């Protein structure tokens, strides 16, 4: 036991003396969560638009007021003729132009129908889509207000209700994903690098020719990173709760247990990587390419798994991150308990046991 403690002490010296890695270790989660939370977002805020109003009557004025009063849009320009539409888009000043037809009010009263054209800059299709949805929503709201007193026979107004993330805040979607990435990266990459560093510097040779048992070396290597990963997980959850006001519906205790399970599975993967790579660089490449990309692309973090082609859907099953994301989304957003996620937990547990068994088996007690 004393040997083991001595080994862990040494590992902490390594970690705390390598300032750069330490900075990455703790800077990265914060930077990533802020980036994903603020910069990479599907929401729109204060989008600049232009108005081309051919009728300039009471109704259009009211609609324009409603639009400019919303926090989603700000009216940047009023243009006078159709020909200007092209030029405001080309200058890139605005993302959308609202084109009200002539005699808007009159048509509305006469035919119960008036047209407004929403022209959006679709170089960024996601934003364009969102803008048009938001404008539609405002128009419908206005319609409802106007028609309050009149009974209209046929009018189907679809009402969509978003559950779990009613405001469609994208940060709620990203937090579980970012947490998964960070834990994967810190645990797997850092352990694999720290083990291969011993190989590269030749200290592994001395450790092998010592009474330390393989499991003591492995656990000793892994232990500090379990500790650091837990700190990281706590930091991420705190940031999302306090900065992004993200609700954690489920049990924090369950969340912690599931996170530790995932951390251990990632650490076991890290050890596995270190057994097949001879240098720190190889270990890093394998961790980045072999773990990060699948985690980002195939775990359902960014692209929904159900819309992937079948072969990729099948492959996504062997990625531990997929199951972890399902688990933490369930706990954080839906507030479910273990009875709803025991299947995913069991799969993750099985994978972890497999990885640990493989890495202990593959750990070399000699140089070849």
């Amino acid at each position, binding site marked *: 036991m*004393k040997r083991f*403690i001595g080994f862990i*002490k040494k590992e902490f010296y390594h970690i705390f003396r390598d300032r750069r890695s330490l900075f990455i270790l703790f800077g990265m989660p914060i930077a990533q969560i802020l980036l994903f939370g603020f910069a990479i977002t599907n929401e729109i805020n204060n989008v600049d638009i232009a108005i081309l109003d051919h009728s300039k009557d009471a109704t259009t004025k009211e609609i324009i007021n409603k639009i400019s009063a919303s926090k989603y849009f700000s009216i940047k320009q009023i243009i006078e003729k159709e020909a200007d539409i092209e030029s405001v888009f080309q200058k890139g000043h605005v993302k959308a132009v609202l084109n009200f037809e002539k005699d808007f009010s009159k048509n509305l009263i006469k035919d119960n129908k008036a047209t407004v054209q929403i022209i959006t800059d679709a170089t960024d299709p996601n934003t364009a889509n969102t803008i048009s949805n938001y404008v539609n929503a405002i128009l419908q709201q206005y319609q409802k207000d106007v028609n309050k007193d009149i009974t209209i026979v046929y009018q189907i107004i679809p009402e969509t209700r978003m559950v779990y993330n009613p405001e469609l805040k994208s940060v709620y979607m990203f937090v579980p994903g970012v947490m998964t990435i960070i834990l994967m990266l810190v645990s797997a990459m850092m352990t694999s690098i720290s083990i291969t560093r011993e190989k590269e510097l030749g200290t592994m040779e001395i*450790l*092998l*020719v010592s009474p330390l048992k393989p499991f003591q070396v492995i656990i000793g290597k892994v232990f500090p990173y379990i500790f650091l990963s837990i700190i990281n997980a706590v930091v991420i959850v705190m940031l999302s709760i306090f900065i992004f006001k993200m609700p954690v519906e489920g049990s924090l205790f369950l969340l912690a247990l599931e996170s530790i399970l995932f951390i251990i599975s990632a650490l076991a993967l890290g050890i596995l990587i270190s057994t097949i790579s001879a240098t720190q660089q190889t270990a890093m490449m394998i961790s980045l390419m072999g773990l990060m990309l699948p985690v980002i692309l195939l775990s359902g973090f960014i692209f929904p798994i159900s819309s992937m082609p079948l072969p990729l859907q099948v492959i996504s099953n062997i990625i531990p991150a997929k199951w972890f994301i399902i688990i933490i989304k369930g706990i954080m957003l839906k507030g479910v308990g273990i009875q709803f996620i025991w299947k995913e937990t069991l799969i993750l547990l099985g994978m972890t046991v497999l990885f640990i068994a493989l890495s202990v088996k593959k750990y070399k007690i000699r140089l070849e």
Partner: protein
Amino acid sequence: MSISVKHISKSYKSVNALQDISFEVKKGELYGLIGPDGAGKTTLFRILTTLLFADEGTATVAGFDVVADYKSIRNSVGYMPGKFSLYQDLTVEENLDFFATIFGTTVEENYDLIKDIYVQIEPFKNRRAGKLSGGMKQKLALSCALIHKPKVLFLDEPTTGVDPVSRKEFWEMLKRLQQKGITILVSTPYMDEAALCDRIALIQDGKILEIDTPEAIVKHYPKPIYNVRANNMYQLINSLNAYEHNHSVYPFGEFVHYTDNRTDFNPDHLKAYLESKNLSNIHIEKTIATIEDTFMELAK
């Protein structure tokens, strides 16, 4: 016997690193493996420290078989690899403490064993190991390899890249350790260090050329050997190489070591030949063979 090696062979893909190596090291002996880079010294060390399997043959260290009892060997030997293998980001003291701990001992317990060595680096005990000079690093590495009082000490080229003064000190330490009953197997490419061992094995291309005490090895040199000197070293070597009766010509500091293939060699004939090659200040005198001469002769 402290170390016993029987018919060990080992090959990597196309290279025969070791071929049928056998030797024995007595308890408390300072035994040298002398040979150039690539002779197979490191491979042999790794087999004996249980880091590699031999393809053929058996070996025991401190009475334990290197394959079956590898765990016992790992408990009772000290190993200092050729490459500096301590933690560069840990201080001198932390390194020593770490190695003491993983061997289940403390620095205080075996301090007397490393005292002579450690006092020299103690003033720098708070310095990171990576910032030490070459000689200091080796002293620290030796301290770390000794801290658990090993029965057998394996030192793979401990003085390579170390300045001459530190090298001399290092060997004095080895002599003192030997008096404490520790068996030491040391490898070195430096022939002058060979003379400081009790016995040496000359090794080249994975084969042992000869095993004996340094004195005996020198004595066995088969031919009279001459120091030759002249005003132009380069031309002297060329001329000697072109001389029809030469047996061996090796530059050796300010001299050339020369042996002749005739039994009735007369130095005056050689002098006349060299003068005919426009060399002046020619000195030819008989000298004693060194281990290097023996090595060259055996390796021929």
